[in-house]
């Protein structure tokens, strides 16, 4: 049984269908990259998996199965147990998703205590341990910091550490490296690859960067105007596909020692 199956899903806002007939199957330990230009609907698809469509958005056709069970009919209580436990999400800027007026440790403790009956001290320790396991130096100081006191790369690592606390089976990453510098991006990409190797986490990565998508993804899905334009495993997508749009995107990636314009 596949870990996640998205079957013929349409997503609508009001009467307007924005994503049409998307299909995706993800096995345990697999990484799938979804690429496309802004507005192609790639973020909408993974938000639907976590039931996080913004106001008025809903899945209007098809089904999303997680471990064989439909996610669409879940109650609020079932969602709370699932989110952050079996399925986690990392956002473009993990600092911005946290409460700016609370210490990182305080947000982290609250999150841990919604999933587990621990005292505040125990939860604090668990959080600090998790940061240390994600190779954040000086984890106690980070727990006592506010989100804005950390650099973008550090904040993203904190976001990953939070998301990985319960070793979720599925990690959804929405442009996790787009706001970072190139060397920090490489560090975060490496860390996400290690998550898969160490914990067997499946990852869906949404990105507009084809280089990162190709490096991380076993599978690559190309979206355009709310439809899946092309999909397949990496080797096929990079070398064999005859889809013109995929070719166009691939040709546009600047490559070291590749095409020069002058």
């Amino acid at each position, binding site marked *: 049984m596949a870990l996640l199956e998205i079957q013929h899903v349409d997503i609508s806002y009001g009467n307007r269908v924005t994503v049409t007939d998307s299909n995706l199957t993800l096995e345990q330990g697999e990484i799938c990259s979804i690429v496309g230009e802004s507005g192609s609907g790639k973020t909408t698809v993974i938000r639907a998996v976590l039931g996080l469509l913004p106001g008025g958005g809903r899945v209007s056709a098809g089904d999303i199965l997680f471990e064989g069970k439909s996610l669409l009919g879940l109650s609020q209580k079932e969602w709370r147990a699932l989110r952050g436990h079996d399925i986690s999400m990392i956002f473009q800027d993990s600092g911005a998703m946290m409460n700016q007026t609370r210490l990182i440790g305080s947000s982290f403790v609250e999150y841990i205590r919604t999933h587990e009956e621990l005292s505040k001290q125990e939860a604090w320790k668990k959080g600090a341990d998790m940061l240390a396991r994600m190779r954040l130096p000086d984890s106690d100081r980070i727990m006592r910091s506010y989100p804005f006191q950390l650099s973008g790369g550090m904040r993203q690592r904190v976001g990953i550490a939070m998301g990985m606390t319960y070793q979720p089976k599925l990690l959804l990453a929405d442009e996790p490296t787009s706001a970072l510098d190139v060397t920090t991006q490489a560090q975060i990409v490496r860390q996400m690859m290690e998550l898969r190797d160490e914990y067997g986490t499946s990852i869906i990565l949404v990105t507009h960067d084809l280089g990162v998508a190709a490096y991380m993804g076993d599978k690559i899905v190309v979206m355009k105007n709310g439809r899946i334009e092309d999909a397949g495993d990496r080797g096929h997508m990079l070398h064999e596909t005859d889809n013109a749009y995929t070719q166009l995107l691939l040709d546009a*990636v600047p490559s070291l020692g590749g095409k020069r*314009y002058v």
Partner: protein
Amino acid sequence: MFDEKDIILEAKHVTRRFPAAGGRELTACNDVNLKLYRGRTLGLVGESGCGKSTFMRFLVWLDTPTEGEIIYKGKDITKLRGQELWENRQHIQMVFQDPSTSFNPKMRIKDIVCEPLLNYGRIKPSEKDAKARELLEMVELPGDFADRFPHNMSGGQRQRVAIARALALEPEIIVMDEATSALDVSVQKTIIELITRLQREKGITIGFICHNLGLIQSFAHQVAVMYLGNIVEVMPGEIVSKQAMHPYTKALIASVFDTKMDFSKKIDPIRGEPPSPLDLPTGCPFQDRCDRCMELCRRERPALHEVGPEHEVACHLFAKGGEEA
């Protein structure tokens, strides 16, 4: 490839310090020496906060350096004031990263692209419509866009308008600050093609700020790498992938993801993040992240020295001539 007589603008020993809290100083640019050649592109690469934008802003008088001079047409432009400064602004123009915030949202496209021309009295108000159409067609946009507002256009189209506005006065130098970073990769490619075509046709000199080494080396004649306010390597664009020497440049190259790379190999990024520019160590700015740091590097700051044709490196590892010391 580069000729001394083609130097159009030269920055000499440019330093910029900002006062910081507690009586300390932040050095954003430290003794920067760079040359811009006629009809060529200088790409300035580095991570956020390395001082690349601070430097380029001097060229368009958005800031002035604390020390040093910038020579353009035989004059130090950092000292220009009043009428003379106003006259000179025509010759160096700028394109910003985010075109949606660098336009007045209440102005129509024709007013945006013709504003510089009207400012300098180059056209009469009655000629505006025709001129706007001509400028838009130059950047491969339909002339009918002249009556639109910025919010009716996509990011790529807006960036084309920004380029049209910068080119309206037919400047000799254009400074582009991350002009393609906010765009999709396919749009980015078309903008780069546009820029390089216009450069060939009009012989414009471009100063391009970018954090993506893969992109910049594809169209820059000359690439300068900056780290914590210091230029650490300057080289011709075509040798970046093969002959880059400085450990920081190599680290940047190792961080580039592209679709033709070897996916079975683990990427090996450098550790850590740049230290705060407030407390710079003595010696080499890159010492704490460099895996080949020597005792000398902690004591003495390396100066740029020539290691090949048009190729300069600031690193103690390489003595004169490019041989490893």
